[in-house]
């Protein structure tokens, strides 16, 4: 397989990293990952914090089913939703990666 990046040397690496496209990719990824990570950490730790230091979650929602259990089940839903969301987002990132790879090939051909 002929990978367009095989011939990329240190100097070209620096150039590639400096390109607007590459910087945009990193920024998009970081924004998405950091904001969702903060969200799931807060969501996740709310449960043990509330069960450890308060009794609010012991109230019933319906019969013997309390808020604590519903919040616990919500952790599973949250995980699956964020998993699917990431898969979708990552496809956009893949698109950007493909664009960067094809444009770095173009440049090599120009300089050759």
């Amino acid at each position, binding site marked *: *397989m002929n*990978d367009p*990046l*095989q011939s*990329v040397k*240190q100097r070209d*690496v*620096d150039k*590639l*990293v400096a390109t607007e496209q*590459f910087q945009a*990719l*990193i920024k998009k*990824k970081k924004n998405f*990952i950091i904001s*969702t*990570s903060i969200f*799931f*950490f807060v969501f*996740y*730790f709310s*449960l*043990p*914090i509330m*069960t*450890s*230091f308060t009794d609010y*979650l*012991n109230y019933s929602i*319906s*019969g*013997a*089913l*309390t808020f*604590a*259990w519903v919040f*616990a*089940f919500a*952790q*599973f839903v*949250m*995980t*699956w939703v*964020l*998993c*699917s969301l*990431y*898969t979708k987002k*990552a496809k956009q990132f*893949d698109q950007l*990666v493909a664009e*960067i*790879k094809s444009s770095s090939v173009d440049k090599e051909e120009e300089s050759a």
Partner: protein
Amino acid sequence: MNYTAFGLFLLIILATLVITYYAARRTKTTSEFYTAGSSLTGWQNGLAIAGDYMSAASFLGIAGMIALTGFDGFFYSIGFLVAYLVVLYIVAEPIRNLGKYTMADMIAARFDEKKVRGVAALNSVAISIVYMIAQLVGAGALIKLLLNLEYSTAVLIVGVLMTIYVVFGGMTATSWVQIIKAVLLMAGTLLISLIVFAKFDFSLLKMFAHMKTATPLGEAFLNPGNKFNNGWDTLSLNLGLVLGTAGLPHILIRFFTVRDAQTARSSVVYATWIIGIFYLMTIFLGFGAAAFVGTDTIKQANEAGNMAAPLLAQALGGDFLFAFIAAVAFATILAVVAGLVLSAASAFAHDFYSHIIRRGNVTEQQQMKAAKWASVGVAIISVVLALFAQKLNVAFLVGLAFAVAASSNLPVIIYTILWRRFNTTGAIWGMLVGLFSSLILVCMSPNIWSTEPGKAILVGTPLISLTNPGIISIPLGFLAAYLGTIFSAKQDDPKFNQVLVQVHLGNVDQKESSV
């Protein structure tokens, strides 16, 4: 003795040996040995990750904890699952793109100093062996209960089997043992859950209402606080659970078995669905055991509740279902320990031997030989340690492995891919402080010390009340890596761009060398 159980155990041994026989014919090169030639599909690796991860501790341990303490046992289920978001978002794709065979490869992609690789390899070995002792001691006790075999015989059987899988079949055999185990475990758990749920007319509310009066805890059974009554310790446990998975070497090496970052990503997604469904079902296992077996009977069989799931199977489906679930537990143990042998052996053979001792001047044949002997060595060390640990309460070792992984590996993995200023000194500080602070904190904790003889390993007053070191050791790991970097002048900046390109666009060197 239950002859059906004995028969099913033999069937599992036979099936895994057949797998190993076929895998051995496809295990000729180091790449095939360590990574199954990176040939697994997303589905296959997803199942294998699940099989690698869902240990007997979670299958038997969580079912027992929920049966005996209600809500608190479920904390483990939640933490073990949510941890996969950290794996998916932060480590899976970068490690696939940066590494080759081991976790240390990933750090060495940026810092090629031998010291960094050595410390990273030391971490992998420490975590894998600590985790393995917990699994082997549990396995010995379980097989003793299920088949009436001597503890030492049981540990030796498991030890010999795991060595055969890894030495002859490498990653291919290990992966397929894990895949089959995942399927068996899901099938067994689903079956029991459906039977339990049917007894409550498939009504969640009816099941919860029944649990209010089913145990000696009464209504408190459904509320948090029966097991964990120290708030900071609960938070510490949760922190270790959610951050630890992303630093466990035997999970990380699974990402080398697929060909690229996209497949690594999809395998985590498959794994997360499987693992999530499994941990959700632990409620049925736990509630079912509490309702249909009863607290007294569970405690009589095993004080920690480890027999809850097999006893529930017996209560619901008689000897055959009991035998089936016992066999599933056996397969579970085999799959997990095989993965652990492989991760510790790869750190010894690939990192210490090939890179540090031989400085990379080593032939393919020598590497294979080293990998196989390292596997044998790791297995022998673990079995010997497990034999000595028979009488000790080692359940805390799983938590310790998670805490070490979260405190020593995760900070360095994150800084390596995100922080330009990060350098070798920071990496070494972070890993050593993370490792030793977790170990020292546990040595001072109630896991080791208790004023009641027999309750912990030594008699005396614990110096700290935390049983889980995470809440202190994880911030310390991050802090040490940060301070080590700030207080040393050394810059490794130039390589960071290379790392960025590899992380985000894919690894190019590896494609060349694996051809």
